[in-house]
């Protein structure tokens, strides 16, 4: 819904009708419980957050602490909060909650103690909340409007700004150490808005809101971006138009020497800045694609310009032709093997934007206007590519896609698919969860939609628990071949009860489709089951909007479908499968394991 994207306007004024319209949308909602522990009034923050979450397909239930009871609720958890079982806890504190500012006569030692006291308060909150095994989103601190020390406030240790800078630094360090602790950077947000627009004294005195009514939607939007990233709903691929988007001018008409890119003119510089921003996204794992109405050779030539920051090789998919753009974009999603809702499309031409957004409703098509100088804002402020960590996997993702391109090229030269698979010289590591991989495992369980039999989502805490409990067989799989390493791409979690292993989770990254990895995983699962004397496997397929590709996976494994009259809950499209392990034969052929 465009009124819930950058630039925001009138969100609170229209909140009721926005909510009504969002709830009327026919989509498969993800339900999440969100506890707000507030150090100031949070009512309207909750309402705004609800809108932004609904807008990304998350239907939240809320728990709100009593006014300014964030500390009490965390340390002496009320039963209501315990029973609420939050998936996310948001701690809404800000500079108004700082109790121990340095006094002017304080020694450096005493200031250090003040800092420690403030920090201890939050450390004890985070420790106490660890029992929930859920994500904690913590505001850092904004600056107060006034600074009686003037500029000295920033660099004298007695200054409030100085104190806040140090606290924020400590918060950042805590978030680096503590998994599951995420910082909502209101220091940046308030700076972006301007402190005088961020804080409203009148509203603070009247209603104890620690930020202005204009700031509340911005704050809620910011929180929703973090939540979206935690649950793996951020976008993955940026699709770009070329003429007037990646460079000034029209490559087909103006030629390589005529397009505007580089630092010669202001206009050229603005396109260079846009390319540099896009390049930054690429280096942190965002996949790039081109969708342009151009001759392929002309389009490709544009990136050979000596001043072009982006090169032809930076694009995983490159569609420069005269077909309608929505068809090209659908093809791009298919080629890269990601959902349409993972794509963001930037084009200076409003007609092209209109056709794409009308034909492919789940592609994000911001109304960027026609001036490249504003494009970055639309990508950056909307938080499409928000991430909560720079996992090794994110940094390498583009390499995986590029390796896959080479594999596809090679595939064509083989007589049979088996021969091709054999030529890949695949080797896999399939082992029980180990601490090193838990963040990646959690990430995969939350963002894998297609090759996912049950689409069961796990929090980091749940994965940690499972990894220590003996009644679970929990396997991760990594796959590499002669073209490169695919990283950790498969997860199977089995729950053992009475000599039966219930397969609660079976997923695989689409990066390694049709490589036979699932058979290698099955072999290893069976091997572990047999060593524990388990007699049968029960597999579950829960149909979702996206996982039809695995509807028959258990069938292909040789499982037999359990008659629907078994005393297990089934809706008509969900199926249950079983496999007797007494005469199992190894199924994987092309992958060397462990």
């Amino acid at each position, binding site marked *: 819904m465009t009124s819930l994207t950058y630039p925001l306007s*009138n969100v609170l004024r229209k909140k*009721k009708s926005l909510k*009504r319209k969002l709830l009327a949308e026919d989509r498969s909602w993800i339900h999440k419980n969100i506890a707000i522990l507030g150090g100031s009034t949070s009512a*309207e923050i909750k309402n705004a957050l609800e809108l932004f979450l609904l807008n990304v397909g998350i239907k939240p239930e809320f728990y709100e602490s009593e006014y300014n009871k964030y500390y009490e609720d965390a340390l002496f958890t009320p039963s209501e909060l315990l029973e609420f079982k939050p998936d996310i806890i948001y701690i809404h504190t800000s500079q108004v909650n700082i109790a121990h500012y340095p006094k002017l006569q304080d020694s450096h030692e005493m200031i250090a103690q003040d800092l420690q006291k403030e920090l201890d308060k939050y450390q004890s909150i985070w420790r106490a909340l660890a029992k929930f095994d859920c994500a904690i989103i913590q505001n850092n601190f904004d600056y107060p409007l006034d600074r009686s020390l003037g500029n000295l406030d920033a660099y004298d240790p007695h200054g409030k700004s100085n104190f806040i800078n140090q606290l924020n630094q400590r918060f950042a360090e805590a978030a680096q150490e503590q998994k599951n602790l995420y910082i909502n950077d209101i220091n940046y947000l308030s700076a972006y808005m301007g402190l005088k627009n961020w804080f409203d004294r*009148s*509203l603070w005195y009247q209603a104890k809101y620690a930020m202005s*009514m204009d700031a509340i939607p911005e704050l809620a939007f910011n929180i929703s971006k973090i939540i979206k990233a935690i649950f793996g709903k951020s976008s993955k691929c940026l699709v770009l138009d070329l003429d007037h988007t990646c460079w000034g001018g029209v490559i087909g008409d103006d030629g390589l020497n005529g397009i505007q890119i580089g630092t010669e003119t202001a206009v050229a510089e603005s396109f260079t800045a846009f390319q540099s921003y896009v390049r930054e996204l690429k280096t942190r794992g965002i996949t790039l694609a081109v969708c342009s109405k151009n001759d392929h050779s002309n389009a490709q030539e544009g990136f050979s310009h000596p001043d072009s920051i982006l090169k032809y090789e930076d694009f995983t998919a490159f569609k420069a032709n005269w077909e309608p753009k929505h068809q090209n974009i659908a093809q791009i999603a298919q080629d890269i093997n990601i959902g349409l809702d993972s794509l963001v499309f930037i084009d200076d031409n409003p007609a092209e934007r209109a056709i794409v957004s009308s034909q492919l409703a789940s592609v994000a098509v911001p109304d960027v206007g026609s001036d490249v100088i504003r494009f970055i804002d639309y990508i950056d402020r909307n938080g499409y590519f928000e991430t909560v960590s720079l996992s090794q996997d994110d940094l390498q993702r583009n390499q995986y896609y590029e390796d896959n391109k080479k594999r596809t090229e090679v595939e064509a030269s083989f007589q049979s698919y088996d021969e091709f698979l054999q030529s890949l010289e695949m080797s896999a590591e399939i082992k029980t969860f180990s601490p090193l991989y838990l963040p990646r495992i959690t990430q995969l369980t939350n963002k894998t939609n297609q090759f996912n039999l049950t689409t069961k989502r796990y929090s980091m805490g749940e994965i940690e628990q499972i990894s220590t409990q003996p009644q679970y067989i929990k396997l991760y799989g990594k796959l590499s071949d002669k073209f490169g390493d695919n990283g950790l791409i498969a997860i199977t979690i089995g729950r053992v009860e009475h000599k039966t292993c219930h397969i609660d989770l079976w997923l695989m990254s689409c990066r390694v489709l049709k490589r036979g990895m699932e058979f290698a995983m099955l072999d290893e699962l069976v091997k572990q089951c047999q060593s524990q004397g388990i007699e049968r496997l029960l597999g579950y397929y829960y149909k979702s909007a996206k996982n039809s590709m695995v509807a028959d996976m258990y069938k292909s494994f040789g499982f037999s479908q359990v008659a629907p009259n078994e005393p297990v809950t089934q809706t008509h499209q969900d199926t249950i499968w079983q496999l007797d392990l007494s005469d199992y034969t190894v199924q994987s052929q092309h992958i060397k394991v462990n």
Partner: protein
Amino acid sequence: MTREEIFNGVQEIFRDIFDEDDLVIEDSTNSDTIEDWDSLNHINLVSAIEKEFKIRFALGELQELKDVGAMIDLMLTKINS
């Protein structure tokens, strides 16, 4: 700006905030006559009015007002001063 123009602008804001497209306000409308008009929505109303008409109410100024008519009278003096 005439009183009527202000009145219509305020009515639009009421319609948005209470999500009722055909809501009609009168000078005598107050928080007792609109069910949803609680303290939370009151703040929303005031801040939407401030934004729309580019005015600010001083602390306490609104507490003495008994209904919409009194508020619009106050707005009239602010806007046209």
